[in-house]
């Protein structure tokens, strides 16, 4: 049994990073996630575990510091919010191309542009469909509680190193800012240099006499070579799709209608499910936890048993495209969204279910 704490989601990210044996955090302040670096600087893990914490001059620098650290096999991460994550896309694309493990946390806020500092889920496309240039995917985890903020840091690092790929935690301003109980796992020691070199023989750590030099790069000027790089990446994503899907079904067994929602929207839908059932509407909730890999078959199996499906998101309709691709056109699928930083109430969600699905 780990340690029980009452904590903000952003602080849970930071505490979990220290406990996961993270080697380095590189960040730049941006609302609504500045608590991550503030917590780290206050906790001084550099004195305790040796973890490096550095405030960079920009998100561009932060992500490239992450790229540098990741290329040497270190367990490194950054966090930011939507406009900052847009700036990071260059480095994320390079890391995907060079096959480097890293953890990136996005506390999504309303956009486009400078938008607002209030919570949103409008970065679903950016996170799940690549984000930067080139054909690549990130593993995307969508926490719906402060507990999952903690758990996904450990899971994210594990997946990043298992597949040598950047992993994104797609949180939002509300999950980052809200306080909840969280049970922390025990401190995992940071790897020694020897352990790192054994685990990451691909890392650029300095060339011993008895091996070839290592070049960390995403460049291959030969089209045939670059196609091989792409095929390798696609094969990796397929393996990830086959092995790493996570999702949760709540009250789906006897349900006639279904909410599909991730992250904060799923929390709201959980309450909406209870409210609707009190009114006699048999509704369940399907919550994808991994947004890539997306639970295609699982949503199809559960969704296609229903009379109708309402996809609830804090955006104008992004994940609904994947739900529709998963389910086909047998069952009615509608979208309910609030955006620009507005958090829908559970009552609004029940009304939308009644109007768009049951009465529609």
């Amino acid at each position, binding site marked *: 049994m780990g340690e029980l704490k009452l904590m903000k989601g952003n602080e849970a990210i930071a505490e979990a990073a220290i406990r996961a044996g993270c080697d380095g955090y590189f960040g730049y302040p941006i609302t609504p996630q500045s608590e991550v670096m503030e917590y780290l600087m206050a906790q001084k893990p550099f004195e305790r575990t040796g973890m490096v914490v*550095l405030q960079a001059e920009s998100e561009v620098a932060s992500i*490239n*510091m992450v*790229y*540098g*650290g990741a290329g*040497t096999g270190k367990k490194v991460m950054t966090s930011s919010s939507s406009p900052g994550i847009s700036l990071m896309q260059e480095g994320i694309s390079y890391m995907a191309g060079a096959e480097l493990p890293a953890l990136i946390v996005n506390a999504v806020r309303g956009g486009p542009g400078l938008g607002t500092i209030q919570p949103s889920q409008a970065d679903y496309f950016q996170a799940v469909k690549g984000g930067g240039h080139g054909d690549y995917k990130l593993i995307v985890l969508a926490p719906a509680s402060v507990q999952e903020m903690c758990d996904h840091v450990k899971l994210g690092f594990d997946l990043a190193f298992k597949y040598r790929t950047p992993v994104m935690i797609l949180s939002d301003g509300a999950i980052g800012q809200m306080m909840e109980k969280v049970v922390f796992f025990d401190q995992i020691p940071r790897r020694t240099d020897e352990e790192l070199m054994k685990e990451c023989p691909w890392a650029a750590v300095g*060339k011993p006499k008895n091996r070839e030099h290592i070049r960390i790069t995403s460049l291959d000027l030969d089209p045939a070579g670059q196609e091989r790089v792409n095929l390798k990446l696609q094969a990796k994503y397929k393996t990830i799709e086959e092995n790493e899907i996570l999702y949760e079904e709540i009250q789906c067994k006897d349900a006639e209608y279904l909410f599909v929602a991730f992250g904060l929207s799923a929390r709201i839908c959980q309450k909406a499910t209870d409210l609707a059932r009190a009114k006699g509407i048999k509704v369940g909730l399907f919550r994808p936890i991994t947004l890539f890999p997306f639970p295609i078959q699982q949503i199809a199996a559960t969704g296609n048993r229903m009379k109708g499906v309402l996809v609830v998101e804090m955006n104008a309709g992004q994940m609904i495209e994947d739900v529709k691709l998963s389910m086909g056109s047998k069952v009615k699928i509608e979208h309910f969204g609030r955006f620009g930083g507005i958090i829908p109430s559970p009552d609004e969600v029940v009304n939308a279910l009644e109007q768009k699905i049951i009465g529609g």
Partner: protein
Amino acid sequence: MEELFAKPEIRKPENIVYKKTNLMIDRPLSYCPGCGHGTTHRMLMEVIEEMGIQENTIGVSPVGCSVLAYDFLDIDMLGAAHGRAPALASAIKRLWPNRFVFTYQGDGDLAAIGTAETIHACNRGENITIIFINNGIYGMTGGQMAPTTLEGMRTATSPYGRDIATMGYPLKITELIAHLPGVNYVTRQAVHTPNHVRKTKKAIRKAFEIQKEKKGLSFIEVVSNCNSGWKLTPVQANKWMEENMFPFYPLGDMKIDGKLV
């Protein structure tokens, strides 16, 4: 003459007066004949070999002509995105404080797109070495105007010469960096004559010694030619460099042991 070299009996260690460092990989360089990159690479590798630090060195290459530096240097290296090498190097050095970490960057990479990363790595006093090749032009993309392109200099994007009124001034970024307190050693050298090559090698050695002693950032500018981009022969290019580049970018030490010269 060829016959003489073919005689195996004279191939004895005591007869060797000069040889290529073992840390340069046997592969044709991608640089134009007469370009300063190859010589600078060799000086860098000679220093690393002489100091016996191949196993403890991590290099970061840029985007530009030297993007493929990691194909020629027999050390572990990372290829950075354009301009970001100092950010990578900052993180690597902090995560691996017992490694020697350097960046190798051109003028577009270091003084245009990577200005923020350069200035801030220098200002934090990261204990790394930055090697900056300044040839006043974007070589790899075909000879466009660089931040260090001289006034009046013709390039693909300043075909009538760099016009200060509309295109701004050539940037003396090395002078700017010398004034940052986190920076220990700043020098400007060249590699177009044996004498200058020796001085550059000495500067690189000094920079790595500073890193060993954890005294802060060392910054070496190498003013070089780009005969292809300047549309001159290598010999003409070196003459043009002496007559035009050196007066604006004068060679010599700017900062030693944290003190401006």
